[in-house]
C-alpha cells in the first residue's frame, strides 16, 4: 500500500475519480461503517456528510469551502423566506440567494468567456485563468440548492429544513454532486430525513446499474472518443465528408453512453446506500420530436429548466399566447445552452433546439392533422428518423471545440462527401464502427430486456455477483490500458 496516506490529500493534478482503485478502497472503508450505522438516521447522515465533503475535497481541493458556503447561505435564506411575511422581503431574499449562487457560477465558469467577448487580450486571460481553477460540479450543486430556495418561495415545500446537517448533506451528496442528476430538494431531502431499510433488491439493482453504467461509459464511450471521435473533431479538415458525418453519429452515441453510463453509476451508488435518485435518460433516440427528446434526455435538467425558468417565463408572456410560448422556449434554451459551457457552440446548440421546439409548437396543429391522415406507424418511424438526424446534425455544435471547427465540419460534410472511400474506411475503422453500432443497438433494445436481466442478476448468490462484477472490470480495463488505435487519414 505504498503512498496510500499521501494519496489521501488533495492533488490538483490527480483529482479523485470514480474509476480508480483509491475510490474503491475509500468507498469500501466508508461502506464498512455505513453498513452498521445506516439504521440510525443521525449517525448515518453525519457519516454521509463527512464522506461527501471529503470526497469533494479530494476532487476539487479547497473549493469544498465554496460548497459549504453556498449551502449555508441557502440554509439560512430558506428560513428567512419562510418566516418573513412580506412578499417584498421574500423576493429580496430570493434575489439575494440567486445573486450569491449564480454569482459564484458566473465568476468561475463564465469570467473568461466574458473576457473573450469583450476582447480582453488572450495573454492576459491566460495568466488570469491560472488563478481561477473551477470548482468541479458547480453548475450542478448550485442548481440543486436553488431548487430548495425556489420551492420554499413558492410554498411547494411546506416547511424549511431545520437540520443543518441534512441540508448540507443534500447539497453535497457525493453520488450526484459532480455531474448530476440534479435531485430536487423535495425529492432528496425527505429521503435523507427518513430511515430506510435497504433490501436485497436495491443492492442487486445498484450493483447492476454500476456495472452497466461502467460498460457504457468506459467500454463504449471512452473507446469511441479516443479511437475515433476526438481525432476528427480536433482536426476536421484532415478528414473527408463521410468521416466527419460518421464522427457526428459517433459523437451522439458517445455523449449518450458517457453521460447515461455515468448517471447509471451515480444512481447505482445511491441505491447501495438506500436512496433513490431520479433518472436522467429514457431511450432519448426514440423521440419523435425535439419536444419529446427533452423529456427523455437529461431529464433532471429539463425538469429544472421547465419548473424554474420556462414556467415563470411563459407565465410572464402568457398574454402573447403563441408568441409568448415561443419566446419563453427560446430564452429557456438559450440559457440551457449556456449552462452547458462557456462557449458559443453550446449557446448555438441550445438555440437550435429551442428553434426546433418553437417550430414544433407553431406547427403542432398541422402535424396533428397529418398524423390523422397518414399511416400512423409510418409517421412515427419517419418522425424518429428525422429527429435522430436533427440530433446528429446539431451534436456537431455541442461537441466541437469552437464555432469555426463546427462550421468547418458542416462545410466538409456537404462539399467533400466522397463515397468511394467508404469501403476502405469500414475496413480501417472496423472496431470503432462495431462499437458505435453496439452503442446504438444497446440503446434501442427494449427496456424489458434490461429489467429482466436486472432481476436475474439480483437473484444470483453474492459470490456470483462478485465474479460478474470482476469480469466487467476486467473487460473495461482492457480499454483503459490499450493504446489508441493508430490514426489513419484516408487521403483524398
Amino acid at each position, binding site marked *: 500500500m505504498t503512498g496510500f496516506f499521501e494519496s489521501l490529500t488533495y492533488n490538483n493534478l490527480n483529482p479523485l475519480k470514480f474509476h480508480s482503485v483509491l475510490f474503491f478502497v475509500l468507498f469500501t472503508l466508508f461502506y464498512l461503517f455505513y453498513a452498521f450505522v445506516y439504521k440510525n438516521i443521525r449517525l448515518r447522515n453525519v457519516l454521509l456528510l463527512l464522506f461527501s465533503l471529503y470526497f469533494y475535497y479530494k476532487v476539487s481541493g479547497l473549493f469544498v469551502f465554496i460548497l459549504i458556503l453556498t449551502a449555508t447561505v441557502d440554509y439560512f435564506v430558506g428560513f428567512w423566506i419562510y418566516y418573513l411575511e412580506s412578499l417584498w422581503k421574500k423576493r429580496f431574499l430570493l434575489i439575494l440567494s440567486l445573486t450569491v449562487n449564480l454569482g459564484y457560477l458566473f465568476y468561475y465558469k463564465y469570467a473568461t468567456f466574458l473576457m473573450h467577448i469583450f476582447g480582453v487580450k488572450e495573454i492576459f486571460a491566460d495568466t488570469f485563468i491560472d488563478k481561477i481553477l473551477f470548482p468541479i460540479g458547480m453548475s450542478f450543486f448550485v442548481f440543486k440548492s436553488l431548487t430548495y430556495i425556489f420551492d420554499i*418561495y*413558492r*410554498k*411547494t415545500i411546506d416547511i424549511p429544513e431545520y437540520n443543518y446537517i441534512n441540508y448540507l448533506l443534500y447539497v453535497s451528496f457525493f453520488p450526484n454532486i459532480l455531474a448530476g442528476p440534479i435531485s430536487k430538494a423535495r425529492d432528496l431531502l425527505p429521503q435523507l430525513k427518513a430511515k430506510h431499510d435497504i433490501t436485497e433488491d436495491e443492492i442487486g439493482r445498484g450493483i447492476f446499474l454500476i456495472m452497466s453504467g461502467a460498460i457504457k461509459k468506459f467500454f463504449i464511450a471512452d473507446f469511441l472518443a479516443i479511437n475515433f471521435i476526438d481525432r476528427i473533431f480536433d482536426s476536421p479538415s484532415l478528414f473527408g465528408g463521410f468521416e466527419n458525418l460518421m464522427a457526428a453519429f459517433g459523437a451522439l452515441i458517445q455523449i449518450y453512453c458517457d453521460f447515461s453510463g455515468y448517471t447509471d453509476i451515480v444512481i447505482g451508488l445511491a441505491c447501495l446506500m438506500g436512496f433513490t435518485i431520479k433518472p436522467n435518460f429514457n431511450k432519448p433516440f426514440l423521440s419523435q420530436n425535439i*419536444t419529446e427528446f427533452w423529456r427523455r434526455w437529461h431529464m433532471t435538467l429539463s425538469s429544472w429548466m*421547465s419548473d424554474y425558468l*420556462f*414556467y*415563470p417565463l*411563459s*407565465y410572464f*408572456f*402568457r*398574454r402573447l*399566447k*403563441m408568441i*409568448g*410560448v415561443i419566446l419563453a*422556449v427560446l430564452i429557456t434554451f438559450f440559457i440551457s445552452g449556456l449552462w452547458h459551457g462557456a462557449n458559443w457552440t453550446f449557446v448555438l446548440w441550445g438555440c437550435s433546439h429551442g428553434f426546433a421546439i418553437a417550430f414544433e*409548437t407553431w406547427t*403542432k*396543429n398541422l402535424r*396533428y392533422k397529418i398524423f390523422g391522415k397518414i399511416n400512423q406507424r409510418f409517421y412515427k418511424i419517419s418522425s424518429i428518423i428525422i429527429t435522430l438526424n436533427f440530433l446528429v446534425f446539431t451534436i456537431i455544435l455541442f461537441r466541437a471545440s469552437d464555432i469555426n471547427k463546427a462550421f468547418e465540419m458542416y462545410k466538409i460534410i456537404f462539399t467533400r462527401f466522397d463515397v468511394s472511400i467508404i469501403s476502405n474506411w469500414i475496413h480501417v475503422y472496423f472496431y470503432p464502427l462495431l462499437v458505435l453500432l453496439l452503442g446504438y443497438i444497446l440503446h434501442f433494445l427494449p427496456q424489458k430486456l434490461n429489467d429482466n436481466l436486472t432481476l436475474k442478476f439480483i437473484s444470483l448468490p453474492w459470490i456470483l455477483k462478485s465474479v460478474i462484477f470482476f469480469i466487467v472490470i476486467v473487460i473495461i480495463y482492457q480499454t483503459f490500458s490499450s493504446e489508441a488505435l493508430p490514426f489513419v487519414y484516408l487521403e483524398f
Partner: protein
Amino acid sequence: MSEEVKTKLNSIFKNVFKDHSLEVTEEMTSNDVERWDSLSHFTLIATVENEFKIKFHLNELIAMKNVGDLIHGISSKQLSVSNS
C-alpha cells in the same frame, strides 16, 4: 356559482384544445387532455384570465393541482372582485 364557472370553462377548454367532446371535471388534470402540455398550458390560463377578467399570481398557479383547484381559484377571485 361554480356551475357557471364550469360551463364557461368547458367552452374555453373546447376552444383552446380544439376538442368539442371535452367535458371538464373537478379531478381533471393535464394528463387527461391530449393537447394540454406545458406549451399550451399558459395559452389556456391567459384565455381563462381574459374571459373571467381576473389575474392569477404565479404561486397560485403552481399550487393548483387539477381543474377543481382552478375552478376554486376562479370563483374566489370573482368573489373578491364582486365584493370590492
